[in-house]
């Protein structure tokens, strides 16, 4: 089993709001691995928009993405790309 981890800073003005959370959950949903996103102590399922919204990650917040499973590395890479692009906004 593969595992991957990456720290990311939310770059876009609106933070991890509805559209960004939807995009992240959808990206995470493409992978079989178990993926979590954490902000400090709080950790949520990356495939859950609700969970991501509850992180209330505004611009500049550091989040940690962790994945476990066959495609963990690819999953973290894809999510990293999405976040760093500012969710293509």
């Amino acid at each position: 089993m593969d595992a991957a981890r990456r720290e990311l800073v939310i770059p876009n003005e609106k933070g991890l709001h509805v559209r960004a959370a939807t995009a992240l959950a959808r990206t995470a949903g493409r992978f079989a691995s178990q993926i979590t996103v954490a902000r400090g102590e709080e950790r949520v399922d990356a495939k859950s928009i609700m969970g991501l919204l509850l992180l209330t990650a505004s611009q500049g917040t550091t989040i940690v993405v962790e994945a476990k499973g066959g495609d963990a590395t690819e999953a973290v890479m894809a999510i990293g790309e999405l976040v760093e692009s500012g969710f293509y906004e």
Partner: protein
Amino acid sequence: MRHENLGIVLQGEGVSEGIVLGAVARWDRHETLVEHVRLPESLVNAEVSRFYEAIARAEREIDELYVSLAASTPKGSPAVEGEHLGLLDAHKMMLRDPSIVNDTERYIREEHLNAEWALSMTLKRLEGMFASVKDPFFRERGQDIHHIGERLMQFLAQGDDAEAPPSPLTHLPQGAILFAHSLSPAEALAASRQQVAAFVIEVGSTSGHTAIIARSLGIPAVVGLAGAGDVVGDGDRVIVDGFEGEIVVRPTEYEEILYARRANRAKAVRRAVRQNRTLPAETPDGFSMVLRANLDFAAQAPQVEALGGRGVGLYRTEFLFLERTGPPTEDEQTEAYVSVLKALAPHPVTIRTLDVGGDKMIKFSGPEHAGLRAIRYCLANEDLFLMQLRALLRASNHGELRILVPFIASPYEVREVRRLLAIASEQLKERGIRHAPDIPVGAMIEVPVAALSAQQLAREVDFFSVGTNDLIQYTMAVSRESAAPDYLTNPLQSGFLKLLRMITDAGHHAGITTAICGELAGKPWFAPILIALGFNELSMTPEAIPLVKEVIRRTPRAEALALLQKFNKMDAEEAKDYLDSYMVEHFPEIVTPRFRGAPHYMR
């Protein structure tokens, strides 16, 4: 709350511009009754399937909505269109969100709850989590859960055989004003497709989806009217003013007349924006003025030009200093000043030096300066002031800078500023930094003694800019904190007009620009007075520019002078009434009538 003779005026938040009068179609949400049943083991699997079937139906509904919306929305606003399509997209994904699906399924399987009960427990827990979020921007998303849950409940209640429950809001009368406690995105879209005339929503905010949809489709909307549900009935006539965020329920005839004038005003604003944008602010008899904007952020710059303004007459710098424990660095300040100068180039930008003290305290100021405000504070804190002057000089290379010094009371202060500017320039030279030559330095006239000494001051500065708010307060001895009765803030007091005249006379005599940057500069009804007094530049909030320009372009200076002449023989209240009726006669479409407190001339 019923009155015989008056409509009920409610103040909410205008989230989409426009004003309409129409009949209310009230959309009341009926909470679906949740049954609580413990299931026998044998029915558990079927119950889980029933739950997923409800989800699948809700998904299909959103798909259909998505398709019909994409087809019916006119092309040309892709960004906005994308915005609400995006919301639908999010809702569709939320239907299968693990936080909803997993818990609900677990409640059914492990606790043997029926699907409705299991779902309602899941939703309550989630809504509770959102309710405790501090950031209102995220907290608001709790509404989404509520809407999704409600729709799922309706599909569950419908049973196996029936078609989808009747989609809400399918039979609105055309041109109705939709009144609801809250609306889901699907409901707001369904309503907009039936050409509702306006939205009135009890809850909600500017970032809510109804607001977004209303703005994108140009439908007036007012939200945040808690308790409105108690006074608004189905079929009631209601005025909805999305500019002012007001609604009037069951308006009187008189209020309907006011409404018509407000509606005309809205049209006049749009027309003025369209027609006057590129035209000069010049009276029919050739007296020319320059209209500039009061700005707080460089990001507002495009608005200035779009509304027909030229440059900035007042850029405040306090925001750089407030809410922090130490002063901003020279580089930080330079960057802020450069960005606003660049954004407005080639037009001038008047940057006001630090105006703190009084009601605006900075956290790092020592107690020994607690009583000093603006330039008095800066002269007592030379190092801090020198840093700001250096930043301003450095920024002067990037645009047309003017420096405005607030709260000037004496020519001595101006001389001190010039001395410190020379020192700042020397300090930069030692670092090999050059700056633009001959940067105009102006005095803000807001202390009565400065107006009285205007002739002496005019010899020391390159321009005047009148801060009317403070000038009238200090002249009339009213405080900023407490509300003063109208007669004390009436700018037509002869003594106050005399002060303004002293300022413009001194300015004209010395050949320097005389500007005004207080609130009065942006009041269309006061423009004739400013024309008569001969102000060269008016600086105001950008939104005020089109209408003030409209008044200037239609008021001959000779007529304005005659008007001012008449005021010599009137007391301030008579003068106000006279000016009000003059404006109503000449600019009926521009004056905003108030629903509450009829103006003198209509009493």
